[in-house]
């Protein structure tokens, strides 16, 4: 077990030294932002309770954003951790950008580095060593069919710019994201995540999932395509909300006609008063600063009681369309969405559902009609047919195709009183730090199509 790590502080020192060296070499007309992403991660892939692949990744890269004379060029490169070598490499890349920038067209919407803000977050956890994790994780899995991924280690984000901003965020975290599978190939999905390893909590969590899996032992019920009363649990709602990062609540996508929310802005259409959504950094789990070093407000109301209040507005979009920035990332995606809870106690969900479908998870979502707000995807994992408030059995997976103007609109009957934090366990290029906090939703109708 590690509660202290000699590496802690080394990456931050590297970044600060690098920033100092590079900023001191800038010419008067040059403005530069530097962002760092780094991780020291163990990844162990498990199939059938056995280890399929295991390894360790030590990765560190820096992103340069250079502005000269209303022209902009950016670059990223891998860092080695050797300060002398890295300063030379970044200086070399900066020189390449300097040569490229004069060739580029002027950019009227450039956002210059501004402000003198600093922030510093460093969370140290109680973590498992890479070579001890297998003996902690695996023995309890030997009696079950479990597939999943163990990801563990420290993740870093840093930002500094030539105007004087300095931000640092580092955190230890682990997650075992897994699927338990029974003999009928029915599955339960769960994630055990945190930053302080507690063996008993891990084993209790796994036992709870094993108990849940037993609910899937009864024969599958095949339901026909149609509209059903439906409850979607928090993990499924998180999947629906995550679609809003893609042709959704981006102000730029609104301005360029590509947003699914155009009807709300242009035709004053509203969603249910039970639906409220905010970008909220107050839990401190997600860095509040973006790649430009700008700090978002702690909370941005996006949809309040069904009314569109704001979109995610980057400073670039703000400049292009004459708006006020709320310091979203340039690609204007949700980083820390929080959906408001309602009044339906989780314990009363089955009774409130009555007869219908209970969906724990959704899978492979995509817009089927952006303008109409229609999303298609699959039901997955522990999904049940419920009659008169009692679970009758698991359902065979179904395709859904329905509009959020319906399921967050007139068809939204109730929202649970409890919300869950759904960490983003994604590891494309690097381990994500994002999360979605949301309750479950009860719908009086949801379209299952195939």
């Amino acid at each position, binding site marked *: 077990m590690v509660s202290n790590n000699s590496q802690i502080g080394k990456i931050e020192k590297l970044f600060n030294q690098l920033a100092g060296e590079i900023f001191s070499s800038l010419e008067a007309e040059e403005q530069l932002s530097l962002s760092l992403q780094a991780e020291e991660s*163990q990844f162990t892939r498990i199939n059938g309770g056995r280890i399929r692949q295991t390894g360790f990744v030590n*990765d560190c890269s820096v992103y340069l954003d250079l502005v000269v004379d209303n022209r902009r060029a950016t670059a*990223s490169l891998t860092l080695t951790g050797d300060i002398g070598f890295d300063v030379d490499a970044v200086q070399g890349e900066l020189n390449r950008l300097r040569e490229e920038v004069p060739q580029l067209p002027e950019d009227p919407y450039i956002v210059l580095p501004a402000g003198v803000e600093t922030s510093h977050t460093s969370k140290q956890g109680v973590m498992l060593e890479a070579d001890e994790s297998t003996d902690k994780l695996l023995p309890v899995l030997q009696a079950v069919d479990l597939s999943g991924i163990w990801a563990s280690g420290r993740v870093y984000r840093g930002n500094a710019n030539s105007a004087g901003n300095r931000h640092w965020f580092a955190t230890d975290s682990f997650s075992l994201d897994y699927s338990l599978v029974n003999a009928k190939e029915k599955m339960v999905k769960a994630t055990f995540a945190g930053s302080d390893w507690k063996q008993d909590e891990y084993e209790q969590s796994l036992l709870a999932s094993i108990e849940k899996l037993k609910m899937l032992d009864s024969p599958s019920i095949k339901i026909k395509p149609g509209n059903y009363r439906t409850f979607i649990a928090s993990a499924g709602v998180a999947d629906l909300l995550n679609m809003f990062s893609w042709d959704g609540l981006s102000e730029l996508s609104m301005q360029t006609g590509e947003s699914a929310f155009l009807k709300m802005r242009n035709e004053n259409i509203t969603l249910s008063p039970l639906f409220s959504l905010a970008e909220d950094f107050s839990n401190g789990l997600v860095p509040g600063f973006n790649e430009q070093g700008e700090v978002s407000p702690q909370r941005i109301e996006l949809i309040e009681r069904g009314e569109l209040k704001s979109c995610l507005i980057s400073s670039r979009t703000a400049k292009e369309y004459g708006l006020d920035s709320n310091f979203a990332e340039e690609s204007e995606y949700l980083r820390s969405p929080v959906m408001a809870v309602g009044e339906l106690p989780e314990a009363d969900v089955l009774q409130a559902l009555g007869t219908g479908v209970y969906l724990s998870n959704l899978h492979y979502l995509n817009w089927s009609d952006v303008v109409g707000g229609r999303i298609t*995807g699959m039901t997955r994992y522990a999904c049940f047919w419920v009659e008169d408030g009692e679970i009758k059995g698991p359902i065979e997976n179904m395709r859904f195709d329905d509009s959020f103007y319906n399921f967050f609109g007139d068809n939204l009957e109730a929202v649970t009183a409890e919300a869950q934090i759904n960490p983003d366990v994604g590891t494309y290029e690097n381990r994500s730090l994002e999360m979605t906090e949301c309750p479950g939703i009860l719908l009086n109708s949801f379209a299952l199509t195939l």
Partner: protein
Amino acid sequence: MNLTKLLDQLDVKADWVGLRHVDESTTLRWVRDGKPQANDRSRSNGIMVEVLVDGQFAYAASSNVDIRSVQSAAEIAVNMARAAAPYSIHQFTSAARPVATGNFNSPHQQIESSISAGEINELLIRSCETLKVSEKIVSTNALARIVNSEQLFVSSNGSNIEQQFLMVTTGSMAVAQDGPVVQKRSDSGMRARSWQIGMESLDENRMMSDSRRVGEEAVELLSAEDCPDGTMDLILAPDQMMLQIHESVGHPLEIDRILGDERNYAGWSFVRLNDFGKLRYGSDLMNITFDPGVPHELASYRFDDGGAKAEREYIIKEGILQRGLGGIESQIRSDVPGVANFRASSWNRAPIDRMANLNLEPGDTPVDDLISSVENGVYMHSNRSWSIDDYRNKFQFGCEYAKLIENGKITKTLRNPNYRGISNSFWNNLKAVGDRDSFEIYGTPNCGKGEPNQVIRVGHASPPCLFSNVEVFGGE
């Protein structure tokens, strides 16, 4: 970089050691509405040390490639392999890493530096101007993405491989709006024009001609009828066949997926190990090949990342499933014949089974005959939406642009075309396959899979194909 020397310097107690070094730069130039949005170059450079200890492979990846860091990485990998060995899913030997030597250079005429950043920006600005064929075009986008990749692999049993790739993606897209009606049209769908090619891909005449057509079709869609609902004949253009092959043939045939490795992420497969050699996957007209040797196709290569030599193989022949998409590790675990597709997205991810180039071989029906054989149907082009279940059965795909076919003739343009089906029955309804003249090559740099997640390049080539009894439907 002298990997052989680095390997010789390592002091590692392992049954096998491999070093894989990747140095890859990706340049993205993107213009929206004539204004620069991105002029970015990202360079990723690092090494993966892989060891075999007590029958268990383990890896450690480092962005520092000096001997001290690589030695440290090797020791971490050895410790992890030793700790994991009691829980191994399979006890491997070094036979999983065959000895291979050789090199590969992707075909190209003009290297990246043959065209300047300024010239590419000018080209993209002109493309945006050309896309704006009407005031109804409210947004235009044009991009060029250039990838240079050098991949080296050496191993303690004598492998020494060097592969160099130059790849270019071009794309243009227009959004048209008329009141509440919004339509988007692109150049063959999202980043489908991705090839192993040089800067000759940035041909001005071709790009402007395509941009004009894309703009005109975006405007045309504003006044088009919505795609009808019903069960009917469906012709898919090659730029949609790409997605159809990828999702409903490629992924379900990955052997690691059939073995359950992917169950917690993308899912399982409706195909079982005992289906190989027997399962009727599609009609007699269905011939699918794994072909890493097609010049310019995006995922051509000579060796996979485990050192297996890549060769053309029939995956499905005359509708019958022949072999899986699995590298040597999966072949050993499953006892199913596979292909050389054990691939990693970069130096910091371990190889897994990926589909690479997966193509539908041409038939003998000219496109005009495909169309004239349809009494009532739709011809769909360019993917815009995709979703499929975790067993790769129930899919729903949407396209950007379609034509109505009535009594053997194209009669109208249709907007919001979608279709859905179940993979096995859909492919068994394959009624006609276009001829070699209509065979087109596409690819995508964006195939996601694996835990930890990896995005990798794949290529798909196909002629247009006719399917019968497909559930087709429109928008709102």
